[in-house]
């Protein structure tokens, strides 16, 4: 696996400001969009610093609306803004901005098909020390189940920046899953435009395919390197769009390898693994293993230890691949 390629020009200012954190890259991208397009509005729920929107506030304070700790209201307000032709980005904590305002998202955003982009920081167990109340391990299942919704899971800060820019082309609602305060190792290039709805191949291989998203992409790449040392060729797909799903890439991976392993920082029900399994069960039944959070609530601890304890690490991906290949 090659290190991410840098562009020829000087490193864009946002790269340093994002500090390898996708949540900050999202906020910087929203700020950039806001400079170009006066229809862009940021809506927060006491979350503007969480998302890194100080630059937007300094540039255009009127277009940054924080309604306080009230996610339901934030989502309704965003939908109302969208009906008037504005382009709201709602910024919140993943566990609250999804589950707390789920009915507003379903009705006013998805059902009413409004162009609202939801940036959800601190997803998965990125705030693992906060405990189960603050883990977001069901958000992909919730968002993926809504018609009209686009669901994006950037693998790092670079991809978060480009994915946020790419929502400019989305006509309806979109959900962007973001990390917390733990730095996310870069696995995608600084300058690669986001190809919405398309997986990117980070490693070639024809023995097994690892389809990963978000925080599990870097471990998937590391797992492929370990498998290569053991003589196993693993294809790694970064599935940064969960919906609409890149069916072609998944079907090709199933056809051209001996099985598929999915890897995500999400419950094993309803997330990326579920989406891939739903597709393959119908279109091309394929041996699969699912790497992710089992059906339980996590204990408190540092994020890396929680990931390791519940089976969301490079070692677990390697084990799943070897188990699959028998």
């Amino acid at each position: 696996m090659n290190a991410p390629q840098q562009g020829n020009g000087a490193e864009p200012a946002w790269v340093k400001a994002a500090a390898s954190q996708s949540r900050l890259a999202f906020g910087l991208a929203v700020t950039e969009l806001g400079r170009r397009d006066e229809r862009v509005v940021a809506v927060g729920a006491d979350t503007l610093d969480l998302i890194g929107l100080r630059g937007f506030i300094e540039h255009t304070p009127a277009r940054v609306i924080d309604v306080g700790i009230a996610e339901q209201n934030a989502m309704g307000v965003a939908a109302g803004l969208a009906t008037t032709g504005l382009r709201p980005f709602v910024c919140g904590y993943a566990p609250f901005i999804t589950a707390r305002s789920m009915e507003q998202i379903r009705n006013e955003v998805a059902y009413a098909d409004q162009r609202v982009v939801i940036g959800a920081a601190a997803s998965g167990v990125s705030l693992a020390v906060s405990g189960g109340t603050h883990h977001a391990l069901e958000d992909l299942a919730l968002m993926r189940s809504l018609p009209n919704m686009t669901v994006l899971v950037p693998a790092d800060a670079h991809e978060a920046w480009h994915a946020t820019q790419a929502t400019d082309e989305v006509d309806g609602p979109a959900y962007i899953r973001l990390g917390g305060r733990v730095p996310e190792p870069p696995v995608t290039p600084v300058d690669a435009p986001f190809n919405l709805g398309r997986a990117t191949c980070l490693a070639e291989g024809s023995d097994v395919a690892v389809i990963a998203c978000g925080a599990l992409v870097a471990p998937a790449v590391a797992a492929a390197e370990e498998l290569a040392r053991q003589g196993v060729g693993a294809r790694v797909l970064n599935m940064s769009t969960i919906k609409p799903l890149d069916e072609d890439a998944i079907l090709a991976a199933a056809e051209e390898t001996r099985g598929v392993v999915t890897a995500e920082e999400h419950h094993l029900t309803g997330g990326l693994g579920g989406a891939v399994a739903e597709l393959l069960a119908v279109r091309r039944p394929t041996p699969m293993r699912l790497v992710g959070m089992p059906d339980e609530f996590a204990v408190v601890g540092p994020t890396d230890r929680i990931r390791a304890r519940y089976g969301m690490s490079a070692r677990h991906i390697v084990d799943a691949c070897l188990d699959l290949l028998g």
Partner: protein
Amino acid sequence: MSNREALLRALREQALQIRRNTWRALRAAGSGHMGGSLSAADLLAALYFHYLNLRPDEPDWPERDRFVLSKGHANTALGAVLAQAGFVDDGFIDTFYAYESRFGMHPDIKVPGVEMCTGALGHGLSVGLGMALGSRLQGKNWRTVVMLGDGELQEGSNWEAAMAAAHLAPLRLTAMLDYNKVQQSGHVAEMLGLEPLADKWRAFGWSVRECDGHDMAEIVDALDALPAVPDKPTLLIAHTVKGKGASFAEDTYLWHNNLVADEVYEKAMTELGEPA
């Protein structure tokens, strides 16, 4: 007859027609929410034929005033007033609950003149707040009115929106409460009382006005006096009677949502001065 008398007379006629068309839709469907539709009829007539600045032949006109029916179960009356105002054909009324109709139990944003899918209670005020913010951010003058039900004020999200609206003012935002005192399973005061309601909203930073929601002169005067206090959102508490205009359905939860057989329809229409 003075202009004012002519206006009030025309609005009363529209309100009567909303009630008749409400029963017409209910009969077509065989059932529905009559209580909260009939209580809102006079308010809707005053809004659509006097207060709101709308273009029925150009429903997406960007400068239009916005109206959100947060108590979306009164969609029967909304469908009636949209037809009477010319947003949809008169025949729309007869499609209530019909297969593939856009006229279901709750408002559908795809219907010309409908601004949001509502009826999941407690959602409309937040949406209206977003619309009012959208008006201000774009330097526009159009106004937003949200009609609330009393039962739905039991939903906490209303109070999030109320607090935020006062904090984010000035906004051209009015909430109109159809205070008919009855919800699905009984009287509001017995289910989960709202009083002292005006004091609560004042404490949340709103100006509050009250009127008889069936007295057209009072409704028009209250609307014409908006905003009640500059720079504050206004709550207009309209005291109404659930099921107004059908004696058998008034002030009882039994006619919140009920079946409508032909004899019920005929009785209701007779009371509205139009023998079926």
